[in-house]
């Protein structure tokens, strides 16, 4: 699948925090599908995430302390720009929730040079199941983003994206945590990037649900943070 795009430099960027149980598997499955340029940002994990990622053959940068997903993406994007001059960066979760098969779907609109950025959406995906609570919270996030950034998206907090050159060069991530998702949408709006939503599956395993539930409060905190930042800046 990657053979079709041999002339494009495509990198997978994986922010990871305490994912020792999944990271090896995720990298292996990416390699099996032909994605060999994989950069993992180990965000001060307290477990063996870094070690396992390295053993699986990914390139790995380490944050000394945990700074969040937004900061990790910044590290990754800056580093890739400085060292490899990438054409496309695909951001991918370390916990096995994204499907490797969907990467090609995200790449297509960007490779064909039609769009600057492709965004995965689990709400466009008909097969996807999620807990009602999660669904409610994600929907709230969407309405919130719609109000703040005035962009109409079906899924605003999905970490599965493909950034083309223009997006790589122009998007500035200002929040260090999960709120960066809203930054990216803001930037799409401000920098007038051409974007496309692509239905992508999200796998809700026992592992991810157990990790996800205690985060519902965090979503509310995220909202408050974004509003505060809007007011103060």
């Amino acid at each position, binding site marked *: 699948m990657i053979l079709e795009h041999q002339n494009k430099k495509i990198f997978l960027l994986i922010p990871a925090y305490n994912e020792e149980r999944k990271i090896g598997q995720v990298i292996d499955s990416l390699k099996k599908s032909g994605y060999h340029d994989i950069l993992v940002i180990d965000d001060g994990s307290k477990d063996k995430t870094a070690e396992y990622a390295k053993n699986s053959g990914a390139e790995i*940068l*380490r*944050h000394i302390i945990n*700074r969040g997903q937004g*900061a990790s993406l910044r*590290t990754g994007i800056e580093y890739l720009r*400085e060292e490899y001059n990438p054409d496309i960066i695909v951001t991918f979760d370390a916990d096995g929730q994204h499907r490797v098969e969907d990467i090609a779907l995200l790449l297509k609109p960007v490779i064909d040079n039609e769009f600057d950025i492709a965004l995965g959406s689990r709400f466009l995906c008909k097969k996807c199941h999620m807990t009602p609570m999660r669904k409610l919270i994600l929907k709230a996030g969407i309405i919130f983003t719609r109000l703040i950034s005035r962009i109409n998206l079906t899924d605003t907090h999905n970490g599965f994206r493909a950034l083309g050159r223009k997006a790589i060069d122009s998007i500035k991530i200002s929040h260090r945590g999960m709120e960066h998702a809203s930054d990216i949408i803001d930037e799409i709006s401000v920098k007038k990037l051409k974007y496309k939503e692509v239905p992508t599956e999200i796998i809700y395993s026992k592992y991810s649900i157990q990790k996800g539930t205690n985060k519902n409060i965090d979503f509310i905190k995220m909202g408050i943070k974004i509003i505060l930042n809007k007011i103060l800046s």
Partner: protein
Amino acid sequence: MNILTLIIAIFVIFAISRVFLRYKGKEISLREMIFWNFIWMIVLIVVLFPNLTTNIAKIIGIGRGVDTAFFISILLLFYLIFRLYVKIDKIDKDITELTIQTSKIIHKQERKR
């Protein structure tokens, strides 16, 4: 002078001496030293001369002197909390920047070897 006034006065003098010590130890700037001592002086004056605050209260129009003191203290607290928020936010951003840049630098050095 009642016991409470005395206790507060002693505490304020203690606080002022701490501010001076921290300034001498270069932990705070001259501006901060002046700012904090100014605050503590006001507290001292309010405590020692309650009549004075009553007069100010009359001029501002908020009834009793103690109320004026509370009113001003709350305003001040809000301001201080805001300043703290801004500072902490700045430090937080700095730490993020440091983390990002060091991770890149360390990795590049390791790659060269």
